[in-house]
């Protein structure tokens, strides 16, 4: 009977216009939103850069400005302030200059105050402040050190930067280049995607159970099929729908990717000069190579996590008739997921902290936490296996519990279930 429920529910979901439309349009929407966000950031930075900005400098010592002018700033034009500070401030307000930099005489003296003032019209972007701070600081150091007549080698040494190359050592004695930053970001993306899948499709299970309860289909259904079979068939059908949708999306992205790759190798594309730019961009941190152990973990954990969440969501759907009534229960169900989002951000910093390790065992957080942890640190095999064992055991347990709630609650109408009702439903036979 699970089979009949599965086929019926699956076709009912997949054959709707809504399903076809979301499957076709969601990638376009996602790409659109991402492209839009990137474009907004890019253009706002560009417009800020391209605008010629003049900063008047009131240099009381007379020693700093020459150094600043000699250095030159890439996005600001500096000029000597010719009027009093108050007049210059008025000029800023009137928009005749973009800013006023006041450098007190002490700034050039060793051991004196290190305060300087930057006046901008109203509140400006933080970038101007940041860019000017380090720029002026360099000049201040140089001027203050002038009287010690340091040899250029010393000066060079002082200003030398540091390239810290992080190398991860594995137990096999291999050295892997690269910092934890890239895996941490990738890990976060993986966690969010896993969560989204569990969340979205789990909620659909709740919605379909609720629909059958509120539309009074439930009694007809359970007079033909065991409630457990109904719940399982439903969970599997929505899972099948999820798999269909995700496969369609991957296929679409794959096709787009192939075309993009073909296009980028054409001579016309090279002529556009973008290819060269792309080549220059080689300085970007390279993506870590695909980790098959993580891919396998994700592929196994996503269905498990979905099963866990869908059972709980299914039970909630059977308890309540409308989403409004179910709100409190849904919030409780979502707590572990919110917890996951919080935890996932600490994985990069402390992949072996007790908080994170427990998170990769706890069944509701493990599906997202385990792969993320695996990306950042070497998780011992026993931990991976233990995590899977806990998830499988909890999924089986929860499906059983959800089946009982489903059976007991599906035909109870007219009042919001109390905790006592839920307990009765669980204990009834």
């Amino acid at each position, binding site marked *: 009977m699970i089979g009949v429920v599965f086929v019926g529910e699956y076709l009912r979901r997949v054959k709707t216009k809504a399903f076809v439309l979301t499957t076709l349009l969601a990638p376009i929407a996602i790409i659109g939103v991402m492209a839009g966000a990137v474009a907004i950031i890019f253009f706002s930075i560009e417009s800020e850069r391209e605008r010629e900005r003049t900063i008047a400098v009131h240099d009381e010592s007379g020693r700093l400005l020459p150094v600043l002018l000699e250095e030159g700033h890439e996005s600001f034009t500096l000029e000597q302030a010719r009027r009093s500070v108050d007049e210059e401030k008025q000029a800023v307000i009137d928009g005749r200059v973009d800013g006023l930099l006041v450098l007190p005489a002490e700034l050039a003296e060793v051991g004196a105050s290190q305060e300087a003032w930057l006046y901008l019209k109203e509140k400006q972007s933080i970038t101007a402040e940041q860019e000017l701070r380090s720029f002026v600081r360099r000049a201040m150091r140089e001027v203050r050190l002038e009287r010690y007549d340091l040899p250029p080698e010393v000066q060079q040494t002082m200003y030398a930067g540091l390239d810290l190359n992080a190398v991860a050592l594995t137990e096999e004695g291999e050295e892997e280049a690269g910092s934890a930053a890239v895996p941490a970001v990738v890990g976060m993306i993986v966690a969010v995607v896993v969560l989204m899948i569990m969340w979205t499709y789990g909620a659909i299970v709740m919605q379909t159970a609720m629909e059958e309860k509120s539309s*009074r289909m439930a009694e007809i259904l359970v007079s033909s099929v065991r409630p457990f079979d109904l719940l399982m068939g439903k969970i599997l059908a929505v899972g099948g729908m999820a798999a269909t949708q995700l496969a369609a999306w991957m296929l679409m992205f794959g096709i787009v990717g192939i075309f993009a790759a073909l296009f980028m190798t054409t001579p016309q594309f090279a002529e556009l000069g973008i290819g060269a730019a792309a080549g220059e961009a080689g300085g970007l941190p390279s993506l870590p190579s695909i980790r098959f152990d993580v891919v396998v973990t994700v592929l196994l954990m996503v269905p498990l996590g979905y099963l866990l969440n869908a059972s709980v969501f299914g039970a909630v759907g059977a308890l309540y008739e409308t989403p409004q009534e179910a709100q409190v229960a849904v919030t409780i169900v979502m707590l572990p997921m919110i917890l996951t989002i919080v935890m996932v951000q600490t994985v990069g910093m402390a992949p072996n902290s007790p908080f994170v390790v427990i998170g990769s065992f706890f069944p509701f957080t493990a599906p997202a936490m385990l792969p993320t942890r695996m990306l950042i640190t070497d998780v011992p095999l026993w931990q991976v296996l233990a995590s899977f064992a806990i998830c499988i055991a909890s999924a089986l347990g929860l499906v059983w519990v959800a089946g009982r709630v489903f059976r007991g609650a599906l035909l109870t109408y007219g009042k919001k279930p109390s905790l006592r009702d839920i307990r009765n439903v669980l204990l009834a036979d």
Partner: protein
Amino acid sequence: MLEVDQVTKRYATTLAVDAASLAAQPGRILGLLGPNGAGKTSILRMVNNITKPDSGEVRLDGQVVGRATQAKVGYMPEDRGLYKNVKVADQLTYLARLKGLSATEARRGARRWLTRLDGVDFLQKRPRELSRGMQQKVQFALALVHAPRLLILDEPFSGLDPINSALMEEVIREQKAAGTIVIFASHRMEQVEDLCDEICLIAEGRILISGDLAEVKRGFGRDTVSLEFAGEGAFLARLATAGQVAVDKQSAGAAELRLLNGYTGAQLLDEVRREADEIYRYSATYPSLREIFLQAVRDAGRSRSAA
């Protein structure tokens, strides 16, 4: 034959069904009557194997109900619905398949029954495009599509217009003639009286009266008088005060009475002749099902408070 044998069902704190026994025969229609919360739905759910009795047994053709018997039962519950956005043909097919039909049989059955119920053009529609009466026909078809051995109809006529009621009644009689066991649960006494061969009266989880409808009525005696007359009806109140009759129903120029304390029909007729300007009808009948029902429920309440 469907047998409900000494069945008891308890929910958390309430005793929903208390050692109830009843039987329904093939080719007969059993009317299940009872006030709200009497335990009708509880019994029907156990017959459908949706819930299990705490004690006792339900058997269909000698087989204890379970997964195997579910496929032989057609159920139109009182709380019934349809998937709002799914084509009627698709949902009928799906639900018939849950009753064990193959996809082809299910589709054929759906078409055949909707044709019989004058609704073949509903097949490609979605319930939200159908009126309530039309949806009800679809739900009726749902109970019939797998040719059940036992057909259970809970308030099947509620909200249906007379034409469709008549059509549905005709189909129910056909099912009876074909040897199906039919259970008909309702509050509508006239319909039960009209359709049923046997009745079973439930209140507070217990079966108060059950048996052949005509026999049950005979058991209550021929002391019910139906009157139609012209003139003032005040004399009836006087007779009632004197304890000679009980007035069950009264309107201008019509009344339904029961004779009490040895007061005879002849005496009543004399009284009417004296008081009324004209007599259109005088008939002594068996009590109506409604009267039997009310009296049985009252008696049950009285005996319980006495105990």
